[in-house]
């Protein structure tokens, strides 16, 4: 079985300092993977690479068996399978509906289907009835959930979540957790980062620990392994 992601000798440097150095790491398709580590341990950098938004300084990244060539054309194609949700997401100007529908429109999803999927996604995050609200007028929590709806509406193969539970109140954490827990059943592999060790036990998947840009441990094999 080929790994979903396979990293070989990946190094990412900012200036003279390596912010990420991973000799080998594999991530299997399916399930929920957690990436833990203190702030500055390289979690966000790794997520950017896995979302194909940033390229490594050195090394090879394979996605579903295909070596990523980092050219504009193939990146655009790969990005359509992977969606990253930032820790403090940016909402576009316009309504909540327009935000959630935008990625679907890019993919050529037609009007009726698009509408249905937007409404389903908003319902999943508990924002039914928010479609016409101005995205810029939402509270922090509502904005976070709108961004979540925008990501899951795309039904991506991989959903990368950067600190999905930070700055969210208790009740919302539970909603988010159950939503995330339901993703693998819909065919989406989830990789989330957290610096809160208490959260780690709860997703109940595989855990990769990062420290100073290096993988310290990976457990929960076989879906995740340091080779």
């Amino acid at each position, binding site marked *: 079985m080929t790994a979903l992601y396979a990293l070989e000798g990946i190094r990412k440097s900012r200036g003279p300092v390596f912010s990420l150095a991973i000799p080998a790491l594999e991530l299997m398709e399916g399930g929920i993977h957690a990436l833990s580590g203190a702030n500055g341990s390289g979690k966000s950098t790794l997520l950017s690479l896995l979302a194909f938004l940033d390229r490594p300084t050195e090394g090879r990244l394979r996605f579903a068996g295909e070596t990523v060539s980092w050219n504009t054309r193939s990146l*655009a194609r790969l990005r359509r399978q992977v*969606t990253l949700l930032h820790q403090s997401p*940016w909402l576009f*100007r316009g309504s909540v509906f327009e935000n959630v529908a935008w990625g679907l429109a*890019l993919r050529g999803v037609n009007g009726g289907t698009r509408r249905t999927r937007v409404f389903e996604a908003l319902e999943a995050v508990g924002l039914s009835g928010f479609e016409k609200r101005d995205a810029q007028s939402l509270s922090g929590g509502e904005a976070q959930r709108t961004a979540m709806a925008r990501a899951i509406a*795309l039904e991506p193969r991989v959903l990368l979540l950067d600190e999905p539970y930070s700055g969210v109140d208790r009740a919302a954490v539970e909603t988010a957790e159950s939503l995330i827990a339901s993703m693998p059943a819909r065919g989406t592999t989830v990789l989330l980062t957290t610096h809160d060790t208490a959260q780690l036990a709860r997703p109940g998947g595989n855990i990769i620990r990062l420290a100073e840009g290096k993988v310290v441990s990976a457990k929960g094999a076989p879906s995740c392994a340091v080779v």
Partner: protein
Amino acid sequence: MDFLTDSVRAALVLILALDPDIASAALTSLQVAACSILLAAIPAIPVGLAVGLLDFPGRRAAVLALNSLMAVPTVLVGLLVYMVISRRGPLGGLDLLFTPSAIVLGGILLAGPIVATLVMNAAEGADRRIIPTAMTLGAGPLRAGLKFAAEIRLGIVAALVAGFGRVLSEVGVAMMLGGNIRGYTRTMTTAIALETGKGEFGTGVGLGLILMTIALLVNILFNLVLQRSRP
């Protein structure tokens, strides 16, 4: 004292009488400024976005060039365009000199750097998350760029208004390239220069007031619209 009040009185009479020469000059001014800004925007907005967003070798030089071009005196722009479109110049055969198109050509060169620089500033000041967000939602570079432009549209409109104002208010290019021909290439600013030269200060002030009113109306209009689209 009398001098000033007389001038203002003459100005009001002029406005109320709706003099056809003045109407023609006002229309020419507006048309020339509108054409200039529309044509300048086509290259200037993409250039401003590119310089503001991308990191490429020579970027600092491009920023410097844009900033310097903003400060080029209008008369120099007029002179350069004159040398190109004069019958002795490379484009002499087009017979552009002393036509409104000649002023538009100069206006494009005046407005372009302003629009590009202001768009660049808006792009640099925009949120860093816009482009990655658009891309992770599946946009290629072009669609992401368009989405980015839509997100900073307030800044882009402000840049266009500034460029429009520059063309509307300048006199050097309009005089040199248009020739201040009555009913044809006479703009509000060249008409003011002419009336001042004739000692008709009242008419000059009147034209100035009309020009200010036009500029004010355009600005109010854009501001109203911007406020509506503001969150």
